[in-house]
């Protein structure tokens, strides 16, 4: 018995040690670092909550929070709803062959790097030579400055994220749909339920865990998204697409204000934790009938 206990610990030890070094200790250091100001020379000085006051009263910081939240509101619901619709459509396809072809097509964007995706979209969005504006021209509409205008830059970026994530969420929904026993629908139809009633009373409630899951994953993804913004607008025009993560990157690795960056890092950690917990509690309750 004792040999087994030791063996078990021995098996998990490498992973535990690794995650401690790469995540736990740095996380603790981020927390600590947010209370110290580091001079360019390397000396650091304890400043209490001064950096928190500095960052959290900075209007630029709140601007990036607003941008991030706006991006979140534009892409998360859209991705989830579209993914559900696509999954329902794919689930209805009779030909298994075509179902797998279209599933793969929807999933394709998820498998490539966000950098490549963002650059191709930037080309599609190009104000002068972009195919999207050519298309608008054919419809008799004026060209738009997708990534260059203050109003359009966030929706345009959100669309790239939706495109990139749609297939992932679709797969999750599709797998769940396929796991619903057909008898449930038979029973519902014997009880005289129509299509919409079946969707509302059988499908949606049974998909609830996946919907919560997708919502949480998408919020985390869109909150942390960096590649698409960095590869295209770099936060511009005039900081209109500067997100919290972009600000963190700039603060730490462009301006080397590591203390300020640690405050932002703590902010990101705490807000994601709260968002996830709140969502979890809110939606989990609805599953229990």
């Amino acid at each position, binding site marked *: 018995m004792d040999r087994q206990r030791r063996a078990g610990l021995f098996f998990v030890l490498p992973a535990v040690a690794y995650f401690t070094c790469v995540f736990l200790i740095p996380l603790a250091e981020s927390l600590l670092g947010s209370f110290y100001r580091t001079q360019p020379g390397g000396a650091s000085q304890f400043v209490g909550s001064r950096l928190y006051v500095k960052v959290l009263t900075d209007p630029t910081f709140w601007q990036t929070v607003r941008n991030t939240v706006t991006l979140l509101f534009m892409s998360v619901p859209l991705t989830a709803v579209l993914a559900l619709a696509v999954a329902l*459509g794919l689930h209805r396809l009779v030909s298994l062959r075509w179902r797998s072809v279209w599933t793969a097509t929807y999933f394709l964007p998820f498998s490539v790097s966000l950098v490549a995706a963002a650059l*191709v979209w930037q080309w599609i969005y190009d104000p002068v030579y972009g195919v999207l504006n050519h298309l608008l021209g054919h419809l008799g509409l004026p060209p738009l400055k997708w990534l260059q205008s203050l109003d359009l830059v966030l929706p345009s970026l959100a669309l790239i994220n939706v495109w990139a994530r749609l297939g992932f969420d679709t797969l999750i929904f599709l797998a769940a749909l396929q796991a619903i026993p057909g008898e449930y629908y038979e029973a519902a139809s014997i009880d005289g339920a129509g299509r919409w009633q079946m969707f509302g009373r059988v499908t949606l409630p049974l998909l609830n865990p996946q919907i919560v899951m997708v919502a949480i994953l998408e919020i985390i993804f869109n909150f942390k998204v960096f590649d698409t913004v*960095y590869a295209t607008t770099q936060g511009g025009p005039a900081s209109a697409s500067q997100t919290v993560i972009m600000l963190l990157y700039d603060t730490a690795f462009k301006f080397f204000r590591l203390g300020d960056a640690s405050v932002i890092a703590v902010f990101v950690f705490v807000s994601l934790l709260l968002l996830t917990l709140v969502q979890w509690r809110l939606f989990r309750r609805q599953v229990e009938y």
Partner: protein
Amino acid sequence: MKNGWRHLVVVGLVAAGGLVVFFPFFWMAVTSLKTVPEIQRIPLRVAPDRWTNFDNYREVFQRQPFGRFMLNSALVASVSAVSSLLVSSLAGYGFAKFRFPGRDILFFGIIGILMVPFQSVVVPLYLWVNRLGLLDTYAGILAPDLVSVFGVFLMRQAIEMVPTDYIEAARIDGGSEFGIFWRVVLPSVAPAMATLVIIKFMWTWNELFWPLVVINSPEMKVVTLGLVSFTNMYFIEYNLVTAAAVVSILPVLAIFLLCQRWVVRAVVMSGLKG
């Protein structure tokens, strides 16, 4: 006949959506075969003048050490996939089949790391890599990518399904604990191992944030950084950018198309088990 008509509408909508989703790939491929005057032509022509014009591809490799970028990415992604597989399988076995004090706390502690966004630990991690003199090295890029939480989770789920009787039988036959792991457990979870290797390779290949932080010199760049470097000019030559993009995504696209089953499994695993 009402149902047949409905089905046709569904098929049409699914196909239309699929084509829209696919369009950027088509557009990327087509643009990569055009010259600069061609991409600036008004009115726009969809097809390139010459379908066999691969000048942009040649230019991509001439202007930047793009072959080197690809090699760097391949190396980093392979090491991260293999090391992740090894450590995750060990941990998955330990968590699934052994009882020891603190097991559940450790396991949920690791799962809890999913809640920690990488960006929250990036500054201390950068300072550590710097202190250890690993900036601008393969070891530096690999540092946070050697094991993934998802891997531990996936392997634990898979190994839990292995009948404990097999393991007990091997133990009675006098096998060492590691020998049992290697000869009994691992062979029975091959599908999960394939899934993990493939998905981890793709993830590391596609990563941008951390390489951007630790890499400075051109010859250490990975392919995502190489791609970005084509845009650091006043006028973005999209014919080159798209050619570079095609080159950079070909390996992962190939892996995805060949191993679709395993990738799908990974996604479903991460979704079904909240």
